[in-house]
């Protein structure tokens, strides 16, 4: 199970699952563009406000997409019995869970990074902030999806865990959020960037084990 082959096929399965649930990449792109579109309405469209607030709101969109995407992933595994199959070999369910969340990040979170230049341009973000912003969204997104995965695994055995996931995940998101936002302003050579890296590494180190434990519990 620690051989690459099973993990690769876990990736393939998760990828086709994420892809099959809609029109592939179109959907996440549409989602981020859609959220970016909603924002100005809620702010009344004062231009100066927008360029200050816009990038922050995209962080919210990212957090949202991680929760909406992951809500069902583990619950479905539990209900259709696929979780039992993963568990039956003593190998590492943690790794499989990590692969699954990372795959979903790739399909549903990473597109924001690709769209950052476009949306940022529309929101009037200065060009020199684009690279830090993209880096921030990429790493922050990773953290969001990993902790979101933990929350989803924890609430997998609750009938409909939507808001519960949100409630569990939000506090876990905060550190990455703070440093991510700061980093976009302060640039890649700031301490915020180092802290963001630390957040990411920490999530990468801890979240898989937590997911694994939560999933074992859910299958009981």
């Amino acid at each position, binding site marked *: 199970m620690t051989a690459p082959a099973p993990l690769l096929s876990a990736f393939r399965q998760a990828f086709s699952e994420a892809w099959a*649930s*809609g*029109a*592939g990449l*179109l*959907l996440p792109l*549409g989602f981020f*563009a*859609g959220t*970016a*579109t909603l*924002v*100005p*309405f809620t*702010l*009344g*469209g*004062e*231009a*100066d406000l*927008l*360029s200050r607030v*816009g990038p922050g709101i995209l962080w919210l969109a990212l957090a949202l997409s991680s929760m909406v995407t992951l809500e069902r992933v583990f619950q479905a595994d539990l209900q259709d019995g696929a979780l039992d199959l993963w568990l039956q070999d003593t190998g590492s369910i943690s790794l499989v869970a990590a692969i699954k969340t990372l795959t979903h990040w790739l399909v549903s979170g990473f597109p924001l990074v690709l769209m950052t230049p476009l949306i940022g*341009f*529309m*929101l*009037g973000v200065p060009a020199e902030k684009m690279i830090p912003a993209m880096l921030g969204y990429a790493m922050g997104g990773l953290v969001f999806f990993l902790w979101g995965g933990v929350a989803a695994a924890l609430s997998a055995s609750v009938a409909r865990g939507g808001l519960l996931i949100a409630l569990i995940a939000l506090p876990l998101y905060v550190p990455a959020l703070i440093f991510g936002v700061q980093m976009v302003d302060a640039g890649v050579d700031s301490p915020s960037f180092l802290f963001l890296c630390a957040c990411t590494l920490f999530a990468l180190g801890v979240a898989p084990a937590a997911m694994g434990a939560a999933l074992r519990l859910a299958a009981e």
Partner: protein
Amino acid sequence: MLSYLANPLRFMRFSRLAVPICFALGVLMIGWSLYNGLFIVPPDALQGGDLIRAMFTHVPSAWLSMGLYAALAGASFVWYIWRHELADVAARAIAPIGAGYTALCFITGSIWGQKGWGAGWHNLILGDSRLMSVLVMLFLFLGYIALRAALETRQKAARAAAILALVGIVNVPIIKVSVDMWQTTTIHQESSVLKIGGSEPREDDEGMNPVYLQQLLWGFGGHTLLASAMILMLMRAEVYTQQAERQLALKLEER
């Protein structure tokens, strides 16, 4: 005419001729309007000088995007009530073209606005209700396409998409009246060609200069024909695909 064409055979016969004719005429008319629009008509001081030349693409695509959405909803309605297969084929073909024209409207408008509305215009894109409602329509088209892509069987996809198209029709009047109604939330100009929004004519309102209007109408006619040609082409492709699928299924059945 429409009920005459509802028969797939007749449709295929008609469209085989119509596609090249519409295509050729459309390209000619667009070319004529672009030639005049880009090189002949004088620049307009009020509308950002040479930038007014974007109008000959912008306004036709703006009208077409709304028109195509209405057509999408109409075709969906016909399919939903009478289950004319061809209406669904049409709806399916209209969606990408409509999305394309909506995007074109947005892009040309942006180019226009870059100078016309001065520096920092891009901040406005997201704050302007007219512009936003065009974006919203783009997302309606995209949502329609995504929904169709997500459902496996054609019957299901057709019915679900039809429901969405009919529900989304609310947004068309909102786009249309957005300029006229909420002067405060947009700096987009009011309708000067067609006054449907119902705003009181202003004193200084002389309507559009005929020099521009003429080219505009050529462009509009041309784009309408071009869009029709593209839609008919997609519809033909879809009809052929369905036939091929049916034959393939028969072949598989025999084995």
